[in-house]
């Protein structure tokens, strides 16, 4: 398989919330990198994971499938998944695939963080 064209960086912004910045392409090849980022972002008291899609360049249906499996993994731990930085195009894809029913979308990092710190 070709190498993943994605860079994921983790910021633990507080004990409660971690941000995963996504840069590049979210396809099937990003699976290992995404699950590794999740593990890295998962602190002992992390309750909310926030995906930053501002630098997302390309996403196919396998990429959306990865987000579903990540969401299930997070929900199993009674944690939550938020997203921000989605362009109109990717918001539309979240709505089409009904991911927007389960992943809360915010316009900015500040809004997502506010929501993450509201019990």
């Amino acid at each position, binding site marked *: *398989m070709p190498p993943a064209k994605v860079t994921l960086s983790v910021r633990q912004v507080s004990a409660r919330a971690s941000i995963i910045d996504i840069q590049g*392409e979210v396809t099937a090849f990003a699976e290992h990198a995404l699950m590794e980022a999740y593990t890295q972002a998962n602190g002992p008291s992390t309750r909310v994971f926030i995906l930053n899609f501002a630098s997302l360049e390309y996403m*196919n*249906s396998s990429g959306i*499938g990865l987000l*579903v499996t990540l969401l*299930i993994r997070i929900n199993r731990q009674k944690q939550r998944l938020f997203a921000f930085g989605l362009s109109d*195009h990717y918001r*539309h894809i979240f709505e089409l695939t009904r991911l927007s*029913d389960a992943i809360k979308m915010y316009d900015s990092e500040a809004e997502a963080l506010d929501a993450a710190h509201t019990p």
Partner: protein
Amino acid sequence: MTTPSTSSSEGIPLDADSSSEGKRSDTDKWARKVSALKLGPMPSGALNLNVQGKQPVSPLQGFGSMWQKTYRVRLKGVKVLPTGVIKVWKEHFPEFWPKGNRFYGPLTGIAPGEVGLINMALPGGAPLSTGVMVMYADEESFTFMTPQGHMFAGWITFSAYEEDERAVAQVQVLIRANDPIYELGFRLGAARSEDHFWQHTLRSLAAYFGLEEAQVETQAICVDRKLQWSQAKNVWHNAGVRTTLYLMTTPMRAPLRWMRKRSRPTT
């Protein structure tokens, strides 16, 4: 600088081209959001039920445990690129299905937003009319999204990629059974029938490329064991039940239609 790609006489790409280099765009590869499916004209012999007006659903809206199943065939010794595999798969899609199952594709081909009709028999022989919407399509993959009433809520992705300098064709489903009846059927053996269905499809695809009796690798992962009882109401849309009821009541409908026609006032 780009290198022109080489194609076979059927237009199937055989050698590497430049399409995978540089930045890609997915803008025209996704379907537009729709609240209800619209099916185009279908052949007269097709049983067109349970598609028109149904909402497409994702694995999050189903009832049963969530499964990710991957079926894979390696096209050993075949000189074809992943894009060539997908081109053939899109063009001959229904031909690779097991006998007795019909897929009525859109006239415009497998493209984002298009809707197809499925007529098939459930394990046990019950007839089923349902459909799919093409959620995503590019040169190396395409994905179907199922509607309400389909056996599964979720996505079925058909893709091809290169590994060890040969093409690999793959079907990957991310699904939950749509309602309690389907979940029961799934646990009582329909899961195995589904495996056979996609294994047959991949073997037929491999045979198209000259590989007889190709080995299909199968991998199943239970992503979420939990049943979503809040979705048990999906049973209302169950396409298997609705198709069976429709066919059982067909003899009654003809006289009713005739009576209605006769009672209409003439002008």
